[in-house]
Each structure stands twice: as structure tokens, then as C-alpha cells.
């Protein structure tokens, strides 16, 4: 017999054991607070969501796709403080900002410093500090410190549980079909991959009708259906989290952020989904909104300079967004490194001056009430040297 797991075991650089499986017992901290994590897979361009429109370096580096306050509210940036402005598709969120329920942390990223989606997402989710360093997710490990095993606190939206929620704690899932439909972005990529194999290409083409073979990447739009799915997930999340005995921690996902080309058109649509999704959550959570934090993250940011296809490439410093009644918002938090040539990371990316891990620790400790020792040994082992971000919550 072959060793069945030999292949899997050789794939991980670090610890392969479930980090949650070890360690001492900590007191369970029951929580009535809600956390919704929205994972934007693909690498959100933070400089497009929250544009430093008043910065001359920004204008210089983004002559075509840069947002400009003078372009008006349907095409440009909506100033928040005279330096940063919201992308116009996020305009519906401005009232939240003004009510102190929305906070941005620009120049934020995990400790990951290379540029692979897989590795970056995996590191963000497993919390070990290494891609593929643990086989469970940090949010799942956090749940183990929050309940006595008598209630399923976690909720995953979609057909599978994302790594960040995988692990020893039971997690609820919500999905409405036996075999889920795959999103059009994925099918479009398959169409490209199949183009040298007529058997597969023709069959896929016939099955999808509207898809045309050999389209350029420009055609890889995110469809309105994707938006509908996301808004439906937001509605379901709000409904379940608002329930007295419902889950308390949910993970939603939205893909399509890998905008190497035609960025403005695609982000306009996607950021619109995010804005609508946040509003759905606020409406649906209603009385629970005051106890809610919604955290929006992505595996990394993008290059500061635009490329020749009106897009941006994989970068480092990105952005995090916090929304909710529990958030001390209405401001832009963290350290801002600026965009001058000396300030850039590896002469191309936004310097990641604000650590996602600090933000995560703060959310776990200040918002969910987890014990610091538990967080630093079980959830993010070895993170004691990194202090949680201060003053994010009311």
C-alpha cells in the first residue's frame, strides 16, 4: 500500500497539525456580539476603493484610472477628509461614515509579502503566519474559545466552508442547491482553458449559451447574478445572526477583484455590491446592528501605478474596512505611509504599515471578548509581539 497522505504531508512547509487541537483550556467567553467577515478574493485595490485623490503622487501614478474629486460624484471620489475620497460606487455608505459606523484602515495587509493569490489567501485564513501552515482557520479556532461546544456559532455562506472557518468547531452552512451553479467568471476562465480542445470547448459553449469562445479578458465581467447571490447571502446572514439563538460569526465571500485590466468598470460594479451588501446587513440586523462588526478584507492590495490595460497588478498594502454599530467609525485609522517614491514597498506597492493580524486580534479581544492569552497561543500562535490595534470599537 502507498502512504495515502504522503502527498498532502509534503505540501505544507510548517506545522500540519490542527493548531486548535493542542493547548490548555481557556474559559469560554460567551458573546452576543456579531461579526461578519467579508472576504474579497482576488486582491482589492484599496487605492481605488478609498482614493487619496488629493495626493499629487496618486495623480502621477494613476493618470488614467485615478479618481478625481472634480469628476463629480458619479465618476470620481467623494471626499471624506479632503485627502481621501470614497469611490463613487461606495457613495451609499457615506451616511454610515457620517454616523460614525464606518471606518477605513488603508495600507493594511497580512504578513504575507509575496504575490500569489493562493498563498496570500491561505495565510490570511489559516492564521499561522505561513501559507499552508495549518489545516484549520483562525476564525474557527477563535470560536472554540467562545462557546462550550453547545452552540454552533459559525456560519458559512455558500456551498463550502472557507478555510478561515474550517476546523474543530462545528459550522453551519447555508446554500440553496444540491450542485451549486458555478459563477460565470469561473466558466469564462474554463472557456479560455478549453480553447485548444474542441470537444470540451464546444460542449461548454453549448451549455452556457451566451459565452463565446476566445473572448479577451475584457469580457470577464462579473454578472448581475453574482451580485444577486451576494446580496442574498447578506440577507440570509443578517436574518440568521439577528436570531436570538442563531450563529454569531459569519463569513461571506465575493470574488472578481483581480483587476489586471479595465479596473474602473469592474470595480464600479463590485464595490456597488459591497455597498449594497453592507446596507442589507444593517437593515436585516436591525436591533443587533449596535452589537455588530462587519470586517471587509482581501488577501493583498495592488500596484500603486496603473498598468497599460487600465488595471493594476498584484501588490502588497491593501485596505480593511470596518462597519457596524459597534465600530468607532467616521474616520480613517492606522498609519498612512504616503505614495512618494521613497515610501513605496519594493518601489511599486503601497507599504503595508498596518497589520491585518493586529486588526484581527483587536476584533477578537475587544469586540468578541476573547482572552488575550487564548488569542496569542491558540488563534494566532506566536503573535504576542504584535499588539492589537487600539480604539476601533465603542
Amino acid at each position: 500500500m502507498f502512504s495515502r497522505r504522503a502527498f498532502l504531508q509534503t505540501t505544507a512547509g510548517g506545522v500540519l497539525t490542527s493548531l486548535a487541537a493542542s493547548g490548555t483550556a481557556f474559559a469560554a467567553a460567551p458573546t452576543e456580539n456579531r461579526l461578519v467577515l467579508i472576504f474579497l478574493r482576488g486582491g482589492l485595490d484599496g487605492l481605488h476603493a478609498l482614493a487619496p485623490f488629493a495626493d499629487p503622487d496618486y495623480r502621477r501614478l494613476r493618470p488614467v484610472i485615478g479618481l478625481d474629486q472634480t469628476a463629480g460624484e458619479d465618476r470620481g471620489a467623494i471626499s471624506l477628509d479632503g485627502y481621501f475620497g470614497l469611490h463613487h460606487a461606495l457613495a451609499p455608505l457615506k451616511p454610515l461614515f457620517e454616523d460614525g459606523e464606518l471606518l477605513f484602515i488603508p495600507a493594511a495587509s497580512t504578513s504575507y509579502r509575496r504575490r500569489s493569490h493562493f498563498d496570500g489567501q491561505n495565510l490570511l485564513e489559516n492564521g499561522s503566519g505561513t501559507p499552508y501552515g495549518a489545516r484549520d482557520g483562525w476564525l474557527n479556532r477563535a470560536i472554540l474559545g467562545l462557546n462550550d461546544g453547545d452552540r454552533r456559532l459559525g456560519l458559512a455562506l455558500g456551498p463550502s466552508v472557507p478555510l478561515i472557518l474550517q476546523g474543530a468547531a462545528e459550522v453551519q452552512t447555508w446554500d440553496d442547491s444540491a450542485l451549486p451553479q458555478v459563477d460565470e467568471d469561473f466558466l469564462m476562465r474554463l472557456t479560455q482553458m478549453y480553447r485548444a480542445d474542441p470537444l470540451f470547448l464546444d460542449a461548454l459553449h453549448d451549455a452556457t449559451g451566451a459565452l463565446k469562445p476566445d473572448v479577451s479578458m475584457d469580457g470577464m465581467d462579473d454578472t448581475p447574478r453574482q451580485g444577486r447571490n451576494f446580496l442574498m447571502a447578506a440577507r440570509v446572514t443578517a436574518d440568521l445572526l439577528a436570531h436570538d439563538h442563531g450563529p454569531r460569526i459569519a463569513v461571506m465571500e465575493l470574488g472578481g477583484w483581480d483587476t489586471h485590466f479595465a479596473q474602473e468598470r469592474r470595480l464600479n460594479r463590485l464595490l456597488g455590491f459591497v455597498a449594497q451588501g453592507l446596507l442589507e446587513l444593517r437593515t436585516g440586523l436591525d436591533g443587533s446592528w449596535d452589537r455588530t462588526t462587519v470586517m471587509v478584507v482581501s488577501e493583498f492590495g495592488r500596484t500603486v501605478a496603473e498598468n497599460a490595460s487600465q488595471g493594476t497588478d498584484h501588490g502588497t498594502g491593501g485596505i480593511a474596512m470596518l462597519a457596524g454599530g459597534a465600530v468607532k467609525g467616521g474616520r480613517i485609522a492606522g498609519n498612512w505611509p504616503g505614495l512618494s517614491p521613497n515610501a513605496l514597498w519594493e518601489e511599486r506597492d503601497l507599504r503595508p504599515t498596518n497589520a491585518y493580524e493586529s486588526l484581527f486580534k483587536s476584533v477578537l479581544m475587544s469586540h468578541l471578548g476573547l482572552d488575550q492569552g487564548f488569542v496569542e497561543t491558540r488563534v494566532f500562535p506566536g503573535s504576542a509581539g504584535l499588539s492589537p490595534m487600539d480604539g476601533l470599537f465603542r
Partner: protein
Amino acid sequence: MQDIASFIALNRFGLGPAPGEAEAVMSDPRGWIAAQIALRHREPAELAGFESSEAILAAIHTARVKGDRDTRKTTNTMLRKRMVQELLARARAMIATPVPFAERMVLFWSNHFTVSATKGLIAPALPAYEREAIRPHIFGRFSEMLVAAIRHPVMLSYLDNAVSLGENSPAGQRRRQTRGSTKTLNENLAREILELHTLGVNGGYTQADVIELAKVLTGWGHGGVRGRNAMRPVHGGFEFRPGFHEPGPKTLLGRTYPEDGDREGLAVLSDLARHPSTAQHIATKLVRHFVSDDPPADAVDRIAQVFLDSDGDLAEVSRGLIELDAVWAEPLPKVKTHYELVISAHRVTGEDQARRRDVLQPLREFDHLPFTAPSPAGWGDRATDWIAPEALMRRIEWLRRFSGSLPATLYPDQLLDQAIGPVVSDDTRLWVSRAPSGDAAIAMILASPEFQRR
């Protein structure tokens, strides 16, 4: 890093690489296949403990003949639950097997001698049929497998031979007098033996041969053919019923077989198994399975010759397949069946504890549960049988979901090398590398033409 020959051995002959298998194959791909050819193929441990067809059929027929409606329902529910367990165990056995070439041969021959749940009554015994009639013979003599399959009570039920009465047999005469039937003979099994199992549709037989073979086989039945008041006990095994048997000599394919009761059928099957048309027919199907949808004539002739020269020794025939140059000429001439796709996806990702929702549920979605072939001809073996628009979409949907449920420690780059490394196209490599997430990358690897082919 695998080479093309290892890839062909692992995928065309095996069921897709399992973790560590590529390393074992690389030094000697042909030897790796040949080593799996053992005279007695051992039943996988996963299948131990499942009931014999005799026990299952006895329960079915007892409930049918003696039981009331509730008994029948309870028995049926219990047996079907057991069958589902065995289908899952069978899939797990094929995922974990160290002899994937042998398991592929089980699939091939099981499909050649198809029995199907379209005959609902016997459905719970179908996996047992494969265990008893197919598995022991995959590297044995074709003539022995032929007899084991045709004489199996499941086959005799599936193709209606158990109720076929010789016109001039005592039972046939009674039937004609009491019910005025003019035709008591059932030709179904005889026709399929000639057309599907042995000579092939162009193998040189006539309608008269079909009728003669049907007469030869009258009396081959099982212990479930009983009236409510029958004296003989119901049982689930083979049974020769002399009272059903057509008396007198029969002439088939130019040869006359004297009246010999039960043994007549054995004599005819023995001759059919050694007929040159049978050799040609079996060789064509094997070469189609291992070389190409359009089997090249010289390869077919070569295998047919091995079949004839070795007196249908399937170990020799299997070795002959390995020695075909045509086998090693192209890396991806065939498309995996849905079943092979499900098994190989589990193997390559190291998922050896397959769950129902990842095996039986997708197979149901693909309309391809084991032992549900739409006709006695079995499942097709050409690309177009498997890649139609709707089927491809369901494959993609399942692969996307399956990939999302895999351990996050699976590394896309490494999986790509392991799964399709030696044959990966530039397009596939590019689009896998551009996938927006790790599980999407894995889904793209598994949905690639290279992985869906073999």
C-alpha cells in the same frame, strides 16, 4: 516528475495517480501494470462482509412469494440501504486500491456483462453479481467469466431467461394448453449473448441461431421462480429446471449439440467463448478502451490473435494490451467516464474516505450510478458518450464544489504536477496560475481537459 509513459500507465490503465503512486510507477510503467495481473484477483477488504447474491435473492424472492405487502416493503428498504452501502464501499475500494489496473478491468468486464437496476426487483443483488461473477475472472479465462456471468441468477433474471420455457418442454406444453400461448421461449438472453457478450452484432449469426441458443438455455433459472403454493423451497441460487428445458438436439452456428440438459448450455458457451468473432469483438472493445475511440485495425487483430492463441486467457490478453505500440503513442486519446472522473479526483487529492455526497450524489446528478446502464449494452466508451453540454456542466459544478471541500493544505502547483504534469497544456497552466483562489485553481486542474481525459 512523471514522464508520459508513467502518465499513461497511471491514467489509461490505472484510475488516476494516488499519492505516491507516480514515484512507484516511474522506473517501469509497463512492469507496474503487468505486476497487477495476478491469476486470482483478491477481493478488496472494503467489500468483505457484504451478503452473497444467494442470500440477497433468497430474501427478495421469499418476500415476493410468501410475504405480504409490508414485508416486501421492509425487506426492500433494508436491502436497498445495504446496496447503497456497498456502492459507497466499492467506490472507496477503487479510490484506495493499490491495484488500479485490476479495478479498471473489473469496471470494464462488469460493463461488458452489464446487469442493471432497470430490472428493479433484483437491484439489491447487482453489486454481489459483480463480486461473484466478474471479480474472480478478470485475469482468468474468458470462457469461465462468460459462464459465471450468464449462469448467475442476477443475469438470468435481468435478461428473462429464468421464465423462458421450451415450446416442447413439459412446462411449455402446459403453458400453451392452459393459456393458449403460442410462444413460450424468451430470446432475450440468447440474443444478448451473441450480440453483446460473445460474437458481436456482425459476428456471423442469424435469427435462427438466436432461437437455437434460447432453446439450449431453457431450464437455466434460479430458486426464486416459484408459485405461491409451490412445494419446493425458495432459494437464491442457480437452479436447472429440467421441466422447462426444450428437449432434443439443437443446431447452432453449423454445429449440432445433442440433448444434454444443463450441460448443453455449458458446451455452447464454451464454443462461443473460443469463436474467432468473439476474439475480434472482445479485442475491439478492449482496444477501444485502452487505445482510442476508433480502434486501429492492426491493434485489434493483434489482441484478437493473443485471445485465440491463449484460449481466452485474460492475463495474456491484458499483457498484450500493454505491449501495443499504439497504447503509448498518444497521451490523452480517451475521455474518462463520470465514474472514473469521480474516482480519480478522489485519488489524486488523497481523499480516501469518500463521502456519499461526493460519490453517489454526483453520480446521480450525472445519471451514472453504478449498475444503472440504460440497456444490456452497458455504458458507451466514446468521448461523445461522456462530454455533452449538460454533462460537462454538471461535472464542472461538482468539481467546483468538491474542490472547495478539500483540505486547504493541498497545494495547487503540486497537485497540477501530480495530476497532469507530463501532459499539461500552456493554456491550462496559465489559467490555473491565474485562478483567483486556491480552491478555484484546484477546480480548474480537475476540470481541465487533461484531467478529464486519460
